[in-house]
Structure formats: structure tokens, C-alpha cells
């Protein structure tokens, strides 16, 4: 399944400045693995040492925060947009 992944500014050093890249995988975990295969090290920025999503990063599949879905096991259907966005406070 090919999906497009939006890359936040602080991770664009990994993608050669690209703000949007494509990746393969049926789940978010698989997509992150595939991303890391092409942009070595990027997964370690999004996940902590224990392999969980870092506390201050929000990942969306479509419009939904994956913490409302199945976290890293969230399915990523063909063509869906995955967004990686730093958390911000103050509203």
C-alpha cells in the first residue's frame, strides 16, 4: 500500500528537504519501517527507545490522531495521508 507522509520541518534533514514523501505499508508501524529504510534514522526520531510514539509528536492517519485509532497498528489504506506533527501548547 502506498501512502504519502507529511514530514515536519525538524525531520526534513532526513528527507533532503522534502515535506512530503511516499512510503509503503499496511500499518503505521510498517510505514515507519519503510520510511526508515529510505531515510535512515528517521524512525528513531518519531519513536522512543521502547519503540512507542514519542510523547510530543502527534501522528495522524487521515485526519485522526492514531491514539484514537490503533496507535502503531493503525491500518494505512492505499493513498491515505500520514502526518507527523510536533505537539504544541496554548489555545
Amino acid at each position: 500500500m502506498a501512502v504519502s507522509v507529511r514530514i515536519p520541518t525538524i525531520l526534513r534533514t532526513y528527507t533532503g528537504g522534502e515535506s512530503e514523501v511516499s512510503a509503503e505499508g499496511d500499518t503505521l508501524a510498517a510505514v515507519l519501517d519503510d520510511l526508515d529504510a529510505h531515510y535512515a534514522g528517521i524512525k528513531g526520531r518519531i519513536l522512543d527507545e521502547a519503540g512507542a510514539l514519542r510523547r510530543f509528536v502527534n501522528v495522524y492517519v487521515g485526519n485522526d490522531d492514531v491514539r484514537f485509532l490503533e496507535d502503531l497498528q493503525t491500518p494505512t489504506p492505499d493513498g491515505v495521508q500520514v502526518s507527523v506533527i510536533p505537539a504544541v501548547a496554548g489555545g
Partner: protein
Amino acid sequence: MSTVLHETTTAAASTGSTRKGLREGAFGHARALACRECGHEVELGPSYACPECFGPLEVAYDFPNVTREEIAAGPANIWRYKALLPVPSDIEQSPNTEPGFTRLLQAHNLGRELGIDTLWVKDDSTNPTNSFKDRVVACALSAARELDAKVFACPSTGNLANAVAAAGARAGMKTVVFIPSNLEKPKQVNSAVYTDHLVAVDGNYDDVNKLASEIAGEEEGWAFVNVNVRPFYAEGSKTLGYEIAEQLGWRLPDQVVIPVASGSQLTKVDKAFRELVALGLVEDKPYKVFGAQATGCSPVSVAYKAGTDAIRPVKPDTIAKSLAIGNPADGIYVLDICRRSGGAVEDITDDEVRDGILLLARTEGIFTETAGGTTVGVLKKLVETGQLDPTLETVVINTGMGLKTLDAVADRVGPAATIAPSYDAFVASGVL
């Protein structure tokens, strides 16, 4: 400079470094932006997320020596604390809304009603656009100006949008403010009078926030007050803490009760108290910090009660729309501060929020919005449940104005009678 107002991708590990093109002292005595999680430092600029761990960047300073007298000699607004804020020393010369130094009222009646010996209300509803957000926006505006931003913007639960639109108008900057489309009508009008660019988004605040973060990553020249210039913005909330201490005669209260949406304000009041101690401006003493949420959006309170550090985001459903942030980025710090200080985080139902609004209005003559109703209602619950010690001096912060959320109580109050214009009719009405 094509990357103006984009997050800096190269971290300047050295201290004291500032982006090129900035004037000397653009951010006052600020030294760098430091990650609250891992301590990693980046140069002062429009960065907000740590390139190492995504943690929030905060302003770090080399503070000068400041005396109480110097502060007291300053203007009756937040710029009296300018030496402790990331703003230039000539900040008063650039047009801004001059918020702050709001009244600290001793709440004898409310204290008696709740059984609290010494109670104060820090009333921030009298700021220029009637919420504490004018404080943070004034600091963000300074940063935006120093960074040469072209557009001043925010995602907002309402009050921030009001403050950004007004401050931008006064500063002659283009503003674009984003709100959830179901926001209270008065808050929409209170933004739209100042700007042609009020954008209502079909979704909740967390959706609006996501959109703003995406725009901030793509559009050049935009200063999103609570996204890419957030470290500077958030410092504005410290002035609430400074003022409380100064107005108490340069000492810290024993307990303070603060509403929590993203949690930014609460963490900054705590930061302010600790800075005052570190600077020798107040004596060190223990103080307890309490957080207030509405049950319909209480992810921090839920985590507090469950004894966990992990905050599960929620889809908000409460009349306290200004507090309706389901995914509070600073929530874990609120938990930490409230637990470490011996405080608590508590939540109340929408009916109790309404009760809180009426209680404050009828005891102290202060008409607060739903956020304040939440805070006062939580204060009451904290006393009733024995979580707050009523013999300790307590400050409750009223962050916003009731005229913006009239609907919340409109059904609960009204004429006691409708009568003919005659003395007899009045007597017959039984009103007295």
C-alpha cells in the same frame, strides 16, 4: 531570507547565539531556546520543537539583577517585568495592547461561602480583549515583529483569536485567526471586528491546531503565536505569576487554582514563582498548584486521578469551550507540577461550571466566562473533598470574561418578574 519563520533545522548547540539578521537584544536577556525534555539548545528564532526529541522548546535566559524597586517603577502593565521576558528593552515604544497588571481582589464573600480563610481572585477578565491571552499575545507580537513576520496568526479556542486579532490590528499587521466553527458567537464577533481573516474550521480545536501546524510548516513569513513562536508566547503567562506575587507584597501564596486547557498557563505560573525565588525577589516557600478542567474535556484530570503519566486525548464535549483542548501538549507538566507541589487536578460537570459562574458573580461581582466558572467550581469541589486546605492563603485565577459566554447562564437568570410600570404592580409582584 526564504526560510524566515520556518523552524530552524540546524541546531546551534552553542549558547548565546541568535539568528542572523536580528537586531541586538531582540529577545531581551533570552539566551537560547532549550528543550524542556532533554535540555538540547537551539538558537533564538521561530523554533518550537526540539530537533532531538520533539520536546517543547522554552526560552532560557541570562537574567540581569533586577530589584523590586526597578519593577515597581515600571509601567502598570506586563512590561514592568520586561527584563524577565524575551522582549527588547524598548518594547514600550512599539504599539501593543499593553495588557496586564490586572486587579488582585480579596474575595471575602466567596471565601466565607466556601470556608476559605484568605482567598484572592486574580481577575484577568479586565485585559484589553478580556482574557489572559492578551499577555501571551503581547510577547508573541514582539517576537513576530523582531523576526520580521508578515502574518500574525493562531489556532484558537476563541480568546486567543480575539487577542491576536486586536493586537495585530494595533500593530498594523495582517492577522489570520483559525477557530472551531462551533465557537460561541460573541467570541467570533470579538475576532471578526478586528480582522477580515477569521477562519472557522469544521472540527474541534485539535483539528484546528493540526491545520495551523501544517500551515506553519509550509507558509513563509507567518508567525503563529502558539505554534512557531510559541516559546516566546508562552513566556507571557509568567506575568500572571509575577503580578500575584508582587500584589501580595512580594511573596508567594500558599495555593493557586488555575484552569487547564493545553496546560501552558499553569506551567508558566509555576515557572514565574520559581524564577522570583531564584532571583531573590520573593522568599522561597512551598506552594501548591491546582489544575481545573471541565469533565467533558478532562484528560489531565483523568490521568491525575488514575495516577498515570500518560494522557489519553479525548474528543471534547463541554460548554467550557475555551478549555476544550482534547490533546493537551503541556498536560504531563501540569501533572508533574500539581503532584510535586502537593496540589491536584480536578474536574466538574457543565452544571457545576454554570454554578461556578453564578457563585463568583453573586459573591464578588465578577462575571467570568466558562473557564472561570470551571476554576471556581473546581475550587469549591477541592474544598469539599478535602484536597485544598481552607486555612492556607489561596489565589484563584479568573482568566476570562462572562460577556463572551452569555449563553452558558442565560437560561439560569433573568427578570424576577415582569410588571406594569406602577408601584402597586411592584408590590403585588412579591419581588421583595
